[in-house]
């Protein structure tokens, strides 16, 4: 994967942000535009007013735990979230985000390195991925996303990858 930079304003959440919080059962079947108004409301009312397209979500431990309902990932695309970075990420949420084409990173210590409103710059290099707080300094790095998943991300998600493959007759 060629070097790529994702830069955005940080929207900060706590530990254990679960998929019932991201996508409450009562709203998730009403369509993504309705869900947008209710996402995170159990922990942060009117969350949708606080996020702008291009923002980066930063979480604490086990981001995205709970069920792996599709709207909990799809809503990130509707909100225009550029990337999700957390101290640790639930396995299912990680798989779903990659499959949906949303860059997601588990980086121990990220929640202590950035605060709400600061700017985070993510550089995806071939050897390492680095995370830099451009507002007040601080840097962390992690291993790159494994190749199998990087291919999915590069294609823009599993559906786009499938389309490419079907077009190639595989």
């Amino acid at each position: 994967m060629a070097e790529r930079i994702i830069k955005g304003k940080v929207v900060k959440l706590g530990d254990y942000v679960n998929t019932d919080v991201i996508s409450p059962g009562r709203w998730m079947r009403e369509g993504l535009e309705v869900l947008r108004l209710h996402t995170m409301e159990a922990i942060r009312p009117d969350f949708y007013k606080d996020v702008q397209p291009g923002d980066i979500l930063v979480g604490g431990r086990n981001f995205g735990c709970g069920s792996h309902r599709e709207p909990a990932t799809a809503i990130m695309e509707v909100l225009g979230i550029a990337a999700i970075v957390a101290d640790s990420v639930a396995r299912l949420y990680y798989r779903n985000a990659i499959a949906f084409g949303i860059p997601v990173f588990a980086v121990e210590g990220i929640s202590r390195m950035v605060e709400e409103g600061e700017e985070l710059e993510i550089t995806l290099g071939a050897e390492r991925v680095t995370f830099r707080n451009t507002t007040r300094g601080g840097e962390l790095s992690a291993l790159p996303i494994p190749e199998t998943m990087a291919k999915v991300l590069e294609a823009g998600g599993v559906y786009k990858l499938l389309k490419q493959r079907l077009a190639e007759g595989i």
Partner: protein
Amino acid sequence: MSGHTLTEKILAKASGKKEVSPGEIVIARVDALFMHSPRYKFKHFEKIGGVKSVWDGDKVIVAVGHHQFLPSSQEYADAVTFVRKECKRYGIKHLYDMGTGNGHYLMLEKGHVWPGAVAVGSDSHTTAYGCIGCLASPMNFETSEVMLSGKAWFKVPPTLLVKLEGTVKRGVSARDVAQHVLGIVGADGALWHAVEFDGAYLRRLSIQQRMIFSLLTTEMGAMCGMMETDAVTLAYMEGRSRQPFEPVYRDTDARYAKVLEIDVSELEPQIAVPPQPSYTKPLADAAGKKVQQAYVGGCTGGGIEDMRMAAEVMRGRKVHPEVRLIVVPGTVAVFEQMMKEGLVEVFTSAGALITPPYCGPCQMICVGHLGEGETMIGTHPRNLPGRAAADTEIYLASPYSTAAAAVAGEITDPRQYL
């Protein structure tokens, strides 16, 4: 050279490798794909264009009756009609329709999984089938790709071995033990790990009771919750498996990231308090908490033994006037067995409500919603915030403890009723 765990050995076999080690990424063939609401996936197929059929119609299982026993809205009715039509279009041979039951119990009961197989599913509790020695792991979007390729990627996990020894006291059930283990490991204690269970206590349990342990590993962040095949498994599989199988066993010198040894002999009834399934406490700590709804069922409480435990408490007693007790059998076969054993009469004469088999009011999307400010106790797997109305609380416990709360109107030690 050291040996391999059950998880490693199944992943090696399914990916055509001699052996695999933690951290490695492998692409494995899939023997069963479970879905309950593939509407989005079919819509995506249409957007992609050119999709003709799934890779093997015999290996894709759709349980549209998992979340709702009958459509609760026009929108849901239309969604189910669409899914039925699309299953035919793509050659999916196994569709369990409304009222047939909870998909996880059906996958086992109808022989769609077997020891040594690899199963994936678009429900986070797909870890359930580890109880028969099948590597079962949840994933969601990717199931669209699995539907076409019959393959899935896995990161070979480090393994946590949990050994359960001893005999439980009267009134303490498999759920109490599983809840205790979940409390020790924690919500992310097995993140990206496999959990394998063993021990004399576990090997005495039935398949449906073992399933509680496998299923709850997803609440620890795990990839799968495995158990070795034994005589109980083989007896359960007799005449059930859709394919001849060869069980896979762990090597005696397998290497584990961690081993947890637990003696269950002194364990008291346990309870998960809001807002996490892993927040386990002794039930006594929550005693006196008033409940308005009690629920026996769900994918960790819809088995026949769960029904027997709840009925043992309810026999000759009445549901408290300020409580609704909802009983949800896991499948039609469980329901039929309840009728044979007279359990249906025990529940109805106590004033409980029995619904047709499905996954139950765990996610509040069919019937049984909580009103603002209400508290529920149930045998289901999850109590996360956002699952019900904002101002509600959900406690998770054994069928004994759930039934006892329905009688008393508050959380209480069930042993006084046994």
